[in-house]
């Protein structure tokens, strides 16, 4: 009732910049919806190039998320729990893709895994397999950029997890793996879900590293972000329509996570 009079009110000086900030963040989305060629949407989506890009986007983002879970969660556990020298350095290194411009990430991937890359040349020599410009290259590029999101979220949760429960499980005879699987992992469930979704969303929207490492071959390595970028030059209406799809996905994610899921990830 008397909320206005409580000491924790908002200082008046903060209101204008806050309003500007909110409008600035919302405006592009609103503009997109305003300018959307609603009547011609059906035709724009009917394009087989669009459906294959969308399918490939969803597939590669999901595969990248699976890879991030498989490798990122154990990595996060190590970073949170091991007490070894140089761990801080490893932590800084693995979170590097968070601050690296994605294009640079793509170049770096090329030097590592490209046909003449440090590791890639052996893939080519021994197995006749080249990663760039393939579906697998897509997954690799997206994983590279998205996995750190999962790692830092999970690491924070592992740090904050109740070690007492793990000790209790150990005294009950549970092996370390059982403790991890049955106690530790369920304990960080909410953070893990949030981290996984953030990771998936990041992988789905990944553009820079993806296009650098894989190009954008229609039906092959062309995903939604690269298709949108190319469509903007040739068929702006299609770019707008395709953007709508990604906005829709973002909205679904935000609604699904809401505060209860997102908050632990943000606060930890």
């Amino acid at each position, binding site marked *: 009732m008397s909320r206005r009079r409580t000491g924790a009110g908002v200082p008046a000086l903060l209101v204008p910049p806050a309003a500007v900030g909110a409008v600035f963040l919302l405006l592009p989305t609103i503009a997109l919806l305003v300018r959307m060629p609603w009547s011609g949407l059906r035709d724009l989506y009917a394009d087989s190039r669009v459906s294959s890009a969308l399918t490939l986007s969803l597939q590669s983002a999901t595969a990248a998320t699976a890879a991030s879970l498989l490798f990122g969660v154990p990595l996060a556990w190590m970073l949170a729990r091991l007490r070894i020298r140089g761990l801080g350095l490893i932590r800084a290194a693995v979170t590097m893709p968070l601050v690296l411009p994605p294009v640079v990430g793509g170049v770096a991937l090329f030097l590592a895994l490209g046909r003449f890359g440090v590791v890639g040349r052996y893939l080519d020599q021994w197995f006749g397999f080249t990663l760039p410009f393939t579906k697998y290259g897509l997954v690799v590029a997206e994983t590279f950029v998205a996995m750190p999101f999962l790692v830092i979220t999970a690491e924070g949760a592992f740090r904050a997890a109740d070690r007492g*429960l793990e000790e*209790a*499980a*150990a*005294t*009950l005879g*549970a*092996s370390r793996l059982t403790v991890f699987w049955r*106690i530790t992992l369920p304990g960080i469930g909410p953070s893990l879900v949030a981290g996984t979704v953030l990771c998936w969303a990041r992988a789905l929207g990944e553009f820079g590293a993806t296009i650098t490492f894989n190009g954008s071959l229609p039906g092959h390595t062309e995903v939604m972000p690269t298709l949108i970028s190319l469509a903007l030059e040739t068929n702006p209406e299609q770019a707008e329509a395709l953007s709508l799809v990604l906005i829709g996905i973002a909205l679904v994610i935000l609604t699904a996570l809401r505060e209860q899921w997102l908050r632990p990830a943000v606060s930890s």
Partner: protein
Amino acid sequence: MNPQVAGELDAAVEVERGSFRLDLDVQAGPGEILAVLGPNGAGKTTLLRALAGLLPLSGGYVRLDGTVLDDPAAGVYLDPPRRRVGVVFQDYRLFPRMRVLDNVACGPRSRGVDRASARHAAQQWLDRLDVGELARRRPGQLSGGQAQRVALARALATEPRLLLLDEPLAALDARTRATVQGELREHLAGFAGPTLLVTHDPLEALLLADRIMALEAGRIVQQGSPHDIAARPVTDYVATLVGVNLYAGVATGGRVELDDGGAIMIGDTALAGRVLVAVRPSAITVYTSRPDPGSARNLWPGRIDALAPLGDRIRLSVSGSPGALVDVTAPAVAELSLARGRDVWLATKATEVDAYPDGR
């Protein structure tokens, strides 16, 4: 396995953590309940963690049923899952996402029992501890007393060789405590192995334990039956814990000259040399003026420093030569107008005074 050493704990525990050092020997036989009593920071929980394997020893050894669990010199260390040591933690540490039944089934499951049999065994343990009807609940839906029993059931379901309880009643409110205390004694009586019960509450130790080990600063200061400890404490800490006045002095012919001033007459005239004198607060009588000579052979003046309620009594802290804690009833306080700063006379019979050689 040698049946003569079955259910036997034998340990020499040395743990160093920074400046703190825990160094003590502990033995406990089958079915024995040993209370480890001491102030915060005495090393009680450290001892418990070392026995459970949650903290490796720096030196010494832990043997249970003749099996070496930890012996740094021999390079032996079994981690907690391989120890068969049941632990009831102070905060119970029930798994919040599992039902009560699955919490208790956890131990049998970890030993390779299939799910159905493990749940069956878990239900039996819950029934035995009278919480069988709570099996489907989550730990968050339990009261403190119920959680305590579930935690005990979970520990017992692993069929441990040694049971460790860390402040089992500390998390309970005063009313629940009294009930749970009685039940706990009963439930522990059914356990065949040794039980170690860590507590800072002397009453808990006195009521639950067969034997008490008093710990201070990582060392044993006294060991004995609850009766011995309560009647004849050897350090001020234990005396304060059990609520007994303790004085050190030199005895000759039934008279003890106290180190800190004053003298006390004792019944035992044969006792000589350095002794400790224990006087229960309830064995001292308070007078507001000097009484006529009576049968009480100890009579000395003092001044009331503080009054504090203690259960159904009032405990007076009286300074004098010697100073003493004195227990009186609330009506007596009112009738005699006892208050802080009041000069009083204290009296106690020599037969109420317990004197024993100071072995320190």
